[in-house]
C-alpha cells in the first residue's frame, strides 16, 4: 500500500498542463512512464539524487490506469488531489456541475468512516 506514491502521481500530474492531457488520453502509457521515470524523483532534489524504493502495487497501477476514482478513494488516495485532477480531465465532457455530481454519486455506497488518507 503506497498512498504516498498515489498522491505523488496525482499531485505531479495535476500541476502540469501537458501531463493532465497525456493522462487523459493515454492513462496506461502515462502511468507506466511516470512509474519508471518520475516516481522516485524527490521533488526538491536534482534527478541524480532520487529515491530507489517507490513503486505501485498492481491494484494501484490498475486503479490509475482505469481512471477509477472510486477505487482511488477506497485506497486512501487524497480525495482533494483525485477530485481536482479528474475535474481537469473530464468536466469538459459534461454540463455545469454534472461531472462533479456524478463523481459523488458513484461513491454513494461508501459510508463513514472513510478510508484513512494519512501518509
Amino acid at each position, binding site marked *: 500500500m503506497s498512498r*504516498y506514491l498515489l*498522491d*505523488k502521481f496525482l*499531485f505531479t500530474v*495535476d*500541476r502540469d*498542463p501537458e501531463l493532465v492531457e497525456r493522462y487523459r488520453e493515454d492513462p496506461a502509457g502515462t502511468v507506466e512512464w511516470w512509474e519508471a521515470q518520475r516516481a522516485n524523483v*524527490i*521533488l*526538491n532534489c536534482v534527478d541524480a539524487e532520487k529515491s530507489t524504493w517507490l513503486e505501485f502495487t498492481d491494484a494501484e497501477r490498475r486503479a490509475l490506469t482505469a481512471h477509477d*476514482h472510486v477505487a482511488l*478513494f477506497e485506497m486512501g488516495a*487524497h*480525495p*482533494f*488531489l*483525485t*477530485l*481536482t485532477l479528474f*475535474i*481537469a480531465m473530464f468536466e469538459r465532457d459534461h454540463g455545469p*456541475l454534472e461531472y*462533479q*455530481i456524478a*463523481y*459523488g*454519486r458513484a*461513491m*454513494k*455506497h*461508501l459510508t*463513514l*468512516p*472513510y478510508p484513512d*488518507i*494519512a*501518509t
Partner: protein
Amino acid sequence: MAEIAAVIASTHHPFYYRASTSTGPARPPFADEWVSKIERFRETLTMAEPDVLVMVGSDHFHQLWLDNMPQFLVGKAPWFDANFYNEEREFGLPRMKLRGQEDLAAHILRDGLDRDFDLAFSNELRIDHSVTCPIITLRPQADLPIVPVYTNIFAPPLPQPRRFVALGKALREIVESWDSDKRVAIIGTGHLSLELGGPRQFGEHGPDPEFDRKAVDWIASGDLQGCLAEVTLDSLHAPGNATHGFMDFMLMMGVAGDGCKADYVDSLDLFHTMEAYFTWYPNGDPNR
C-alpha cells in the same frame, strides 16, 4: 506597539471570483445576493483602516508537499506571487502579486518560537486561494502588505484543534507586541462542513447543515469552550471529509478571544457549502 484594527474570519470560496465577475447567462442566480453580502463584509475591513494584513490560510497541495510538510508556517518575503495553474484552470482565479511585511513576519517567527510554537518559515512562498480569496473579497485592490500564516488542515497527521486555538491566542499577543505604529488586521479563512472528492460532495447545501448552524453560533458568540468540548480531530470527519478546515476558524476564535462576540456576522447558504463571515473589533467598533 501595533494595534489590532480588526479580526476577520471567513470561508474562502474559490468560485466567488468567477460568480461575481460573470455576466449574462453565465452569471449564476445567487451571484447578486452573494456580491452584496461580500460588499457589506468588505466594508467591515475598509472601516478598520488597516495598514498590514496577517493572512491565515492553508496551502492546498500547491507548493507544500508530503515530502516536507510543515504544520504551521510563516511566509517571510518581500513579495508573494499568488495562485497556481490549477486554480486558474478550475476556478478562473487571476495571477496576483502581493507585497510582504518582513518586519512583522520576522517578529511573529521570533516571538512564536520563543512561545514554544515551532513555526516553519518560507522565504519564497507562492500563495494559493486560501489567501487570495479573502484578498479578492475583502481587499480587491490588493494594496496592503501581508504576512501569510499557513496551517496544515489537509495532510494528516494534523495538529489538535486546541493547538490552533492556542496559536490564535498567541498570534494576537505577538502582533500586539510588535514595535510598530501600524494597524494590523488579522484575517483567517477556513471552512464549515465540507466534502471534497467523497459521496456527499456538491449537494444542495453543505453536507451537514446542523454542524454549520452550531459552528456559526460558536464563532459568533466566541464560545471557545463549547467548541473545544465538541470538536476533535475524529469528530470533524462526520460533517464532511474536508471539514478539518474548520480548525482555521478555531484559530481565529483564539485570535478574537474567549467569549468575545463578533461585531459582524453573516452567512449565505450555497450549494455545496455554507459561506460565513465574521468581524471583531478588539479596540472598539469604528462605526460607534
